[in-house]
Protein backbone atom coordinates (compact mmCIF):
# COMPACT_ATOMS: atom_id res chain seq x y z
CA UNK A 1 0.00 0.00 0.00
CA UNK A 2 1.25 3.45 -0.89
CA UNK A 3 2.27 5.88 1.84
CA UNK A 4 -0.27 8.54 0.82
CA UNK A 5 -3.09 6.00 0.91
CA UNK A 6 -2.05 4.66 4.30
CA UNK A 7 -1.85 8.23 5.56
CA UNK A 8 -5.47 8.90 4.60
CA UNK A 9 -6.60 5.64 6.22
CA UNK A 10 -4.91 6.21 9.57
CA UNK A 11 -5.43 10.00 9.33
CA UNK A 12 -1.91 10.84 10.47
CA UNK A 13 0.52 13.53 9.39
CA UNK A 14 3.51 12.68 7.16
CA UNK A 15 5.98 13.06 10.02
CA UNK A 16 3.92 11.14 12.54
CA UNK A 17 3.24 8.19 10.22
CA UNK A 18 6.83 8.19 8.95
CA UNK A 19 8.15 8.01 12.51
CA UNK A 20 5.88 5.09 13.42
CA UNK A 21 6.78 3.23 10.23
CA UNK A 22 10.51 3.55 10.88
CA UNK A 23 9.99 2.02 14.34
CA UNK A 24 7.81 -0.78 12.95
CA UNK A 25 10.31 -1.51 10.20
CA UNK A 26 13.16 -1.77 12.74
CA UNK A 27 11.34 -4.52 14.62
CA UNK A 28 10.37 -6.27 11.38
CA UNK A 29 6.63 -5.61 11.52
CA UNK A 30 6.45 -3.76 8.20
CA UNK A 31 8.51 -3.78 5.00
CA UNK A 32 9.09 -0.45 3.27
CA UNK A 33 9.96 -0.18 -0.40
CA UNK A 34 10.93 3.07 -2.11
CA UNK A 35 11.05 3.59 -5.86
CA UNK A 36 10.16 6.08 -8.57
CA UNK A 37 7.18 6.24 -10.88
CA UNK A 38 8.58 8.40 -13.65
CA UNK A 39 10.19 11.20 -11.71
CA UNK A 40 7.84 10.91 -8.76
CA UNK A 41 9.12 9.14 -5.63
CA UNK A 42 6.85 6.41 -4.29
CA UNK A 43 6.91 4.68 -0.90
CA UNK A 44 5.11 1.38 -0.47
CA UNK A 45 4.47 -0.32 2.83
CA UNK A 46 3.50 -3.92 3.49
CA UNK A 47 2.78 -5.67 6.76
CA UNK A 48 5.09 -8.63 7.37
CA UNK A 49 3.95 -11.98 8.73
CA UNK A 50 5.55 -11.10 12.06
CA UNK A 51 3.72 -7.75 11.99
CA UNK A 52 0.37 -9.42 11.36
CA UNK A 53 0.95 -11.89 14.19
CA UNK A 54 1.97 -9.06 16.55
CA UNK A 55 -1.12 -7.05 15.61
CA UNK A 56 -3.44 -9.99 16.22
CA UNK A 57 -1.73 -10.63 19.56
CA UNK A 58 -2.22 -6.98 20.51
CA UNK A 59 -5.92 -7.07 19.62
CA UNK A 60 -6.34 -10.27 21.64
CA UNK A 61 -4.55 -8.56 24.54
CA UNK A 62 -6.91 -5.54 24.36
CA UNK A 63 -9.96 -7.83 24.25
CA UNK A 64 -8.67 -9.80 27.21
CA UNK A 65 -8.41 -6.59 29.23
CA UNK A 66 -12.03 -5.81 28.46
CA UNK A 67 -13.04 -9.35 29.41
CA UNK A 68 -11.35 -8.81 32.75
CA UNK A 69 -8.77 -11.54 32.20
CA UNK A 70 -5.42 -11.45 33.98
CA UNK A 71 -3.14 -10.36 31.13
CA UNK A 72 0.40 -9.17 30.65
CA UNK A 73 1.55 -6.59 28.13
CA UNK A 74 3.84 -7.66 25.25
Amino acid at each position, binding site marked *: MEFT*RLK*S*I*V*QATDGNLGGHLVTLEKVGYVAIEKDFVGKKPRTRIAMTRAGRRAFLRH*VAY*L*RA*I*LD*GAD*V*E*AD
Partner: protein
Amino acid sequence: MSLSPEQAAAALREIEETRQRSLELVVYRQGAPVLVLWGVIWIVGFASNAMWPTYAAIVWTVLTVLGAVASWLIGRGGNPGQNLRYVASWAVFLLLFYGAGPILAPQTTSQRAALAALLVAAAYALTGIWWLQRYLWLGLALFAVTLFGFFFAPWFDLWMAVMGGGGLILGGLWLRAA
Protein backbone atom coordinates in the same frame (compact mmCIF):
# COMPACT_ATOMS: atom_id res chain seq x y z
CA MET B 1 2.81 -0.92 31.38
CA SER B 2 -0.72 -2.30 31.47
CA LEU B 3 -3.79 -0.59 30.11
CA SER B 4 -7.06 0.18 31.86
CA PRO B 5 -10.26 -1.31 30.39
CA GLU B 6 -11.22 2.20 29.20
CA GLN B 7 -7.93 2.59 27.34
CA ALA B 8 -8.28 -0.90 25.85
CA ALA B 9 -11.83 -0.11 24.70
CA ALA B 10 -10.68 3.17 23.13
CA ALA B 11 -7.83 1.40 21.31
CA LEU B 12 -10.19 -1.29 19.97
CA ARG B 13 -12.64 1.40 18.85
CA GLU B 14 -9.86 3.17 16.99
CA ILE B 15 -8.77 -0.08 15.33
CA GLU B 16 -12.34 -0.76 14.21
CA GLU B 17 -12.78 2.79 12.83
CA THR B 18 -9.53 2.47 10.90
CA ARG B 19 -10.61 -0.92 9.55
CA GLN B 20 -13.90 0.60 8.35
CA ARG B 21 -12.10 3.49 6.66
CA SER B 22 -9.73 1.09 4.97
CA LEU B 23 -12.60 -1.09 3.76
CA GLU B 24 -14.44 1.94 2.38
CA LEU B 25 -11.40 3.05 0.41
CA VAL B 26 -10.98 -0.46 -1.01
CA VAL B 27 -14.61 -0.52 -2.13
CA TYR B 28 -14.27 2.96 -3.67
CA ARG B 29 -11.26 1.70 -5.61
CA GLN B 30 -13.22 -1.32 -6.85
CA GLY B 31 -16.26 0.81 -7.70
CA ALA B 32 -14.32 3.43 -9.65
CA PRO B 33 -13.75 1.46 -12.89
CA VAL B 34 -17.33 0.16 -12.76
CA LEU B 35 -18.67 3.73 -12.69
CA VAL B 36 -16.41 4.77 -15.55
CA LEU B 37 -17.62 1.73 -17.53
CA TRP B 38 -21.27 2.67 -16.97
CA GLY B 39 -20.46 6.26 -17.87
CA VAL B 40 -19.25 5.05 -21.26
CA ILE B 41 -22.32 2.81 -21.60
CA TRP B 42 -24.62 5.75 -20.88
CA ILE B 43 -22.84 7.89 -23.46
CA VAL B 44 -23.18 5.19 -26.13
CA GLY B 45 -26.73 4.22 -25.09
CA PHE B 46 -28.18 7.71 -24.87
CA ALA B 47 -26.38 8.82 -28.02
CA SER B 48 -27.94 5.88 -29.86
CA ASN B 49 -31.35 6.86 -28.42
CA ALA B 50 -30.90 10.23 -30.09
CA MET B 51 -29.51 8.95 -33.38
CA TRP B 52 -31.26 5.59 -33.91
CA PRO B 53 -34.38 5.65 -31.69
CA THR B 54 -35.83 2.60 -33.49
CA TYR B 55 -33.01 0.42 -32.21
CA ALA B 56 -32.85 1.95 -28.71
CA ALA B 57 -34.35 -1.09 -26.94
CA ILE B 58 -31.94 -3.53 -28.61
CA VAL B 59 -28.91 -1.30 -28.04
CA TRP B 60 -29.77 -0.83 -24.35
CA THR B 61 -30.40 -4.55 -23.82
CA VAL B 62 -27.01 -5.43 -25.33
CA LEU B 63 -25.24 -2.64 -23.41
CA THR B 64 -26.89 -3.59 -20.12
CA VAL B 65 -25.94 -7.25 -20.43
CA LEU B 66 -22.36 -6.34 -21.42
CA GLY B 67 -22.16 -3.82 -18.59
CA ALA B 68 -23.48 -6.25 -15.99
CA VAL B 69 -21.04 -8.99 -17.05
CA ALA B 70 -18.08 -6.57 -17.24
CA SER B 71 -18.94 -5.11 -13.82
CA TRP B 72 -19.07 -8.61 -12.39
CA LEU B 73 -15.69 -9.44 -13.96
CA ILE B 74 -14.16 -6.25 -12.51
CA GLY B 75 -15.53 -6.98 -9.05
CA ARG B 76 -14.94 -10.72 -8.97
CA GLY B 77 -11.75 -10.25 -6.96
CA GLY B 78 -14.06 -9.66 -4.02
CA ASN B 79 -15.37 -12.39 -1.75
CA PRO B 80 -18.08 -14.80 -2.96
CA GLY B 81 -20.67 -13.23 -0.63
CA GLN B 82 -20.06 -9.86 -2.21
CA ASN B 83 -20.50 -11.30 -5.71
CA LEU B 84 -23.77 -12.91 -4.67
CA ARG B 85 -24.97 -9.56 -3.31
CA TYR B 86 -23.99 -7.98 -6.63
CA VAL B 87 -26.12 -10.44 -8.58
CA ALA B 88 -28.97 -10.02 -6.08
CA SER B 89 -28.76 -6.22 -6.41
CA TRP B 90 -29.12 -6.53 -10.17
CA ALA B 91 -32.10 -8.82 -9.72
CA VAL B 92 -33.77 -6.25 -7.45
CA PHE B 93 -33.05 -3.44 -9.91
CA LEU B 94 -34.48 -5.38 -12.86
CA LEU B 95 -37.52 -6.44 -10.82
CA LEU B 96 -38.14 -2.84 -9.86
CA PHE B 97 -37.64 -1.53 -13.39
CA TYR B 98 -39.80 -4.12 -15.12
CA GLY B 99 -42.28 -4.16 -12.25
CA ALA B 100 -42.63 -0.39 -12.02
CA GLY B 101 -42.66 -0.02 -15.81
CA PRO B 102 -46.16 -1.37 -16.50
CA ILE B 103 -47.55 0.34 -13.38
CA LEU B 104 -46.13 3.77 -14.16
CA ALA B 105 -46.61 3.11 -17.89
CA PRO B 106 -43.97 5.40 -19.38
CA GLN B 107 -45.10 6.40 -22.87
CA THR B 108 -41.87 7.50 -24.48
CA THR B 109 -38.25 6.33 -24.67
CA SER B 110 -37.25 9.40 -22.67
CA GLN B 111 -39.70 8.54 -19.89
CA ARG B 112 -38.39 4.97 -19.69
CA ALA B 113 -34.79 6.19 -19.72
CA ALA B 114 -35.51 8.78 -17.02
CA LEU B 115 -37.19 6.13 -14.87
CA ALA B 116 -34.16 3.81 -15.19
CA ALA B 117 -31.78 6.68 -14.42
CA LEU B 118 -33.80 7.67 -11.34
CA LEU B 119 -33.71 4.07 -10.08
CA VAL B 120 -29.93 4.02 -10.49
CA ALA B 121 -29.71 7.36 -8.68
CA ALA B 122 -31.85 5.98 -5.85
CA ALA B 123 -29.63 2.89 -5.54
CA TYR B 124 -26.50 5.06 -5.31
CA ALA B 125 -28.10 7.45 -2.82
CA LEU B 126 -29.25 4.58 -0.57
CA THR B 127 -25.79 2.99 -0.73
CA GLY B 128 -24.39 6.36 0.33
CA ILE B 129 -26.84 6.83 3.19
CA TRP B 130 -26.14 3.42 4.69
CA TRP B 131 -22.49 2.92 3.95
CA LEU B 132 -20.33 4.74 1.41
CA GLN B 133 -20.94 8.47 1.67
CA ARG B 134 -19.53 9.42 -1.72
CA TYR B 135 -22.26 7.36 -3.41
CA LEU B 136 -24.86 9.62 -1.77
CA TRP B 137 -23.45 12.67 -3.58
CA LEU B 138 -23.26 10.67 -6.81
CA GLY B 139 -26.89 9.61 -6.41
CA LEU B 140 -28.06 13.16 -5.67
CA ALA B 141 -26.11 14.53 -8.64
CA LEU B 142 -27.69 11.88 -10.87
CA PHE B 143 -31.18 12.78 -9.57
CA ALA B 144 -30.52 16.46 -10.35
CA VAL B 145 -29.08 15.78 -13.81
CA THR B 146 -31.93 13.41 -14.76
CA LEU B 147 -34.78 15.59 -13.49
CA PHE B 148 -33.33 18.79 -14.90
CA GLY B 149 -32.67 17.09 -18.23
CA PHE B 150 -36.14 15.55 -18.41
CA PHE B 151 -38.07 18.71 -17.61
CA PHE B 152 -35.86 21.46 -19.03
CA ALA B 153 -33.28 20.16 -21.54
CA PRO B 154 -34.47 20.35 -25.16
CA TRP B 155 -32.47 17.24 -26.16
CA PHE B 156 -32.91 14.88 -23.24
CA ASP B 157 -30.95 11.95 -24.73
CA LEU B 158 -27.94 14.06 -25.63
CA TRP B 159 -28.14 15.78 -22.24
CA MET B 160 -28.09 12.39 -20.50
CA ALA B 161 -25.26 11.13 -22.70
CA VAL B 162 -23.06 14.11 -21.86
CA MET B 163 -24.15 15.05 -18.33
CA GLY B 164 -25.25 11.60 -17.10
CA GLY B 165 -22.55 9.51 -18.79
CA GLY B 166 -19.90 12.17 -18.30
CA GLY B 167 -21.02 12.59 -14.70
CA LEU B 168 -20.62 8.86 -14.03
CA ILE B 169 -17.11 8.94 -15.50
CA LEU B 170 -16.20 11.93 -13.35
CA GLY B 171 -17.76 10.15 -10.37
CA GLY B 172 -15.58 7.13 -11.05
CA LEU B 173 -12.47 9.29 -11.14
CA TRP B 174 -13.60 10.96 -7.90
CA LEU B 175 -13.97 7.54 -6.22
CA ARG B 176 -10.54 6.53 -7.50
CA ALA B 177 -9.02 9.60 -5.86
CA ALA B 178 -10.58 8.75 -2.46
